């Protein structure tokens, strides 16, 4: 082993010299980014997590894409036309569009990719995003076996036409989602399961994959064939898996990382003080809530009881004393920040906590419960320090205000998911982060046909119809009004108790420029610049 170590030292020394020389020769700008979990896959049609999306969003580009502030801007398509009835979208691709290996990017590439995304053989977890397209759901579901029936056509090498089942106001957001990224058929056919390896992977994004050592790092370099390569300032990006959040913070402090994925909760106060300029703490399109299993007798039958439970929670204590990262107490399901959409808070938002508690006590009594006959229920949460603290706090609040006898159950992630899926819980901690910037991504979860996602078992014909009608409305203003009404009905039924709206926490070194706030926390490297110092 000593010999190996010596050999290692020689190799290391040689490497150091080489790197040193290279560094002096060409001042290459590099961004080193902590990315949370190790990416499970780089196949845009098979991935489902945020770490994977961050990486692939730099390697691939959809018909539309993300501006630094999150707006929808032209991507692989330079322009598009929408028919008056909102059913037909015609995308005009850039004539000079190319893959990173120089192949021309054509409409057929998109037709192939969309078909692959909905193909049951791909088993994509996100194919439901494409449901608005004609026959998409039928193909994924298996009732339609012919892939060519999917409502997407190549009118000519640079024109893609997509036909929808019904007008979908947020459709332009869906074609920039990873499920809509194009993949190169020749590459996939040639390399099969290995097509995502460095050297094989071909994309149309601002960067190309140059190296990937699982668990260690993933490196990408500028793609010279990207249509906007001239404006891409950053030469190289290295993504590091950083699952241990305190360690990620230490690496940032040591200058080994330029951007972190998260900030340790218990050190937020220190960070706010010592790293004020670097700490980016902004709103995120997500809601933390407690879902109530409506199939359980006691809870399902009494809306007053559920309302009492919602009233008795002091959300200010939770966001100020427990989470402490600028989260907003939530009184609605859809988080704030969506342009043009009015929040639908529960009526008691304007009440003082003392009044809420008084009302809660009243409702609890009306539901038939008292000190002699307390409500017994179990709060389920998945393993995490914060979830535990919040659950303990809520258990306490329910005990003090109402006299509820709540027990806590902590389950490991997979077991917890299973328990929720099989509806074997009373009240469970849950969270939902929006897939795109439209209220529908939240509201669609509780339709009666939503399947396992609707673990509350919420079943309201009125809600289903309202959402359906709204989705068919072409005028955005009218549609939002309908969605607002639907949300109002939903939150007042107390199938879930909103607790807080999420924020993101990142440490961004001051030499990094171009990191702008957007509600989806998507920061494409093509907008980032690292000032050399």
């Amino acid at each position, binding site marked *: 082993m000593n010999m190996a170590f010596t050999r290692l030292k020689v190799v290391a020394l040689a490497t150091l010299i080489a790197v040193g020389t290279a560094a002096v020769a060409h001042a290459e700008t590099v961004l080193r980014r902590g990315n949370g979990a190790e990416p499970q896959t780089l196949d845009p049609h098979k991935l489902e997590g945020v770490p994977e999306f961050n990486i692939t969003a730099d390697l691939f580009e959809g018909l539309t894409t993300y501006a630094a502030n999150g707006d929808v801007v032209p991507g692989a398509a330079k322009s598009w036309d929408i028919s008056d009835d909102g059913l037909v979208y015609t995308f005009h691709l850039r004539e000079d569009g190319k893959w990173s290996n120089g192949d021309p990017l054509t409409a057929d590439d998109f037709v192939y990719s969309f078909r692959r995304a909905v193909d*049951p053989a791909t088993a994509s*977890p996100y*194919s439901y995003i494409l449901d608005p397209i004609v026959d998409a759901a039928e193909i994924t*579901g298996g009732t339609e076996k012919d892939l060519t029936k999917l409502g997407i056509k190549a009118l000519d090498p640079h024109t893609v036409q997509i036909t929808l089942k019904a007008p979908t106001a947020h459709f332009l957001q869906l074609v920039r989602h990873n499920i809509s990224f194009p993949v190169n058929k020749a590459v996939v056919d040639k390399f099969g*399961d290995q097509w995502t390896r460095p050297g094989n992977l071909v994309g149309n994004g601002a960067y190309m994959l140059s190296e990937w*050592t699982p668990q260690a790092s993933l490196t990408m370099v500028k793609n010279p064939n990207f249509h906007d390569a001239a404006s891409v300032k950053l030469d190289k990006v290295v993504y590091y898996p950083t*699952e241990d959040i305190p360690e990620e913070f*230490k690496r940032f402090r*040591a200058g080994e990382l330029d951007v972190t994925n998260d900030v340790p909760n218990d050190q937020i106060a220190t960070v706010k003080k010592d790293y004020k300029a670097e700490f980016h703490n902004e709103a995120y399109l997500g809601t933390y809530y407690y879902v109530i299993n409506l199939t359980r007798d006691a809870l399902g039958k009494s809306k007053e009881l559920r309302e009492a439970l919602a009233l008795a929670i002091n959300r200010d204590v939770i966001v100020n004393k427990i989470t402490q990262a600028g989260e907003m107490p939530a009184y609605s399901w859809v988080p704030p920040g969506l342009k043009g959409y009015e929040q639908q808070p529960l009526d008691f938002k304007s009440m003082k906590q003392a009044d809420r508690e008084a009302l809660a006590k009243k409702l609890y009594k009306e539901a038939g419960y008292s000190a002699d006959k307390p409500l017994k229920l179990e709060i389920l949460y998945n393993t995490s320090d914060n979830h535990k603290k919040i659950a303990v706090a809520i258990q306490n609040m329910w005990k003090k205000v109402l006299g509820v006898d709540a027990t806590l159950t902590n389950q490991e992630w*997979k077991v917890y998911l299973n328990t929720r899926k099989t509806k074997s819980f009373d009240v469970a901690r849950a969270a939902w982060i929006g897939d795109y910037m439209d209220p529908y991504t939240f509201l669609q979860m509780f339709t009666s046909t939503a399947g396992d996602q609707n673990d509350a078992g919420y079943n309201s014909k009125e809600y289903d119809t309202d959402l359906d009608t709204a989705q068919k409305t072409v005028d955005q203003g009218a549609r939002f009004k309908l969605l607002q009404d639907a949300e109002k009905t939903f939150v007042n039924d107390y199938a879930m108790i909103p607790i807080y709206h999420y924020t993101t926490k990142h440490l961004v070194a001051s030499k990094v420029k171009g990191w702008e706030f957007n509600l989806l926390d998507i920061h494409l490297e093509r907008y980032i610049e690292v000032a050399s110092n």
Partner: protein
Amino acid sequence: MLHYFLKRLAGAIPTLFIIITVSFFLIHAAPGGPFDTERHMTKEIEANLKRAYHLDESVPQQFLRYLVGLAHGDFGPSFQSKDYTVAELIEGGFPTSLMLGSLAMLLALVAGLSAGIIAAFRQNTGVDYSVMGMSMIGIAVPNFVMAPILTLVFGLWLSVVPVGGWEWANVILPVIALALPQVAAIARLTRGSMLEVLRSNYVRTARAKGLPSRITVMRHAIRAAIIPVVSYLGPAVANIITGSVVIEKIFSIPGIGRYFVQGALNRDYTLVMGVTIFYGVIIILCNLASDLLYGLLDPKVRYD
């Protein structure tokens, strides 16, 4: 000697088989599957996924399929890291874990033996007490407490070594953190057995004969004193392996320790099985080696 070795080897194979069987059925018994997610997945897609990975078959059937695959050297695809097979993942991470573990073991032996011998020779002096005191700390303080402290002191405050990642300078801290508990244990063991040996008759004879202290120790005493340490090697390797799971996570080291825990949490059946078999083989081999060494050192054992 050969007979002794073959007998030990023959015992290893059923052991490995039991490890494989018990692990397989245990991990399949845990609720939840690799493809459970919070996202909406239609029943058809879930069925397709399960069929593609043979998760729709009964567990005994899957077990037989797995054994057949093993016989062909196929550890299967990773359910979680969809772009890689288990063999590729282990192949990629193993050299790193091996280096980490071997360096730690080496450090533990060298430092532990030296400390133990010195303490034995200087019994009941300040040197003895401090060595034993530090080893108590090394055994008692868990490595997930020691590691961040070392990182803070040497990585951040003194800036002597990098904090995370895996280049050659990164080797130092994790190896120390991993080796410390074993240094402590080996030091105590060595000291104890050394003291015993130094009081034995044959050592007294050697001294009486007029042999210099150094030769007494090197030629006679150490050979006997090392025996408990050699039999501790098996458990020591096991401890280093389990310790490496934590250390690799804390220092972001691309080894296979993390696959073990992450695989179990993600219900990545094939990955967990692959890593379990790997570790099982290593521990069995190390125990074999330790038994062999024991046989070499202690002639009494050979006539078994």
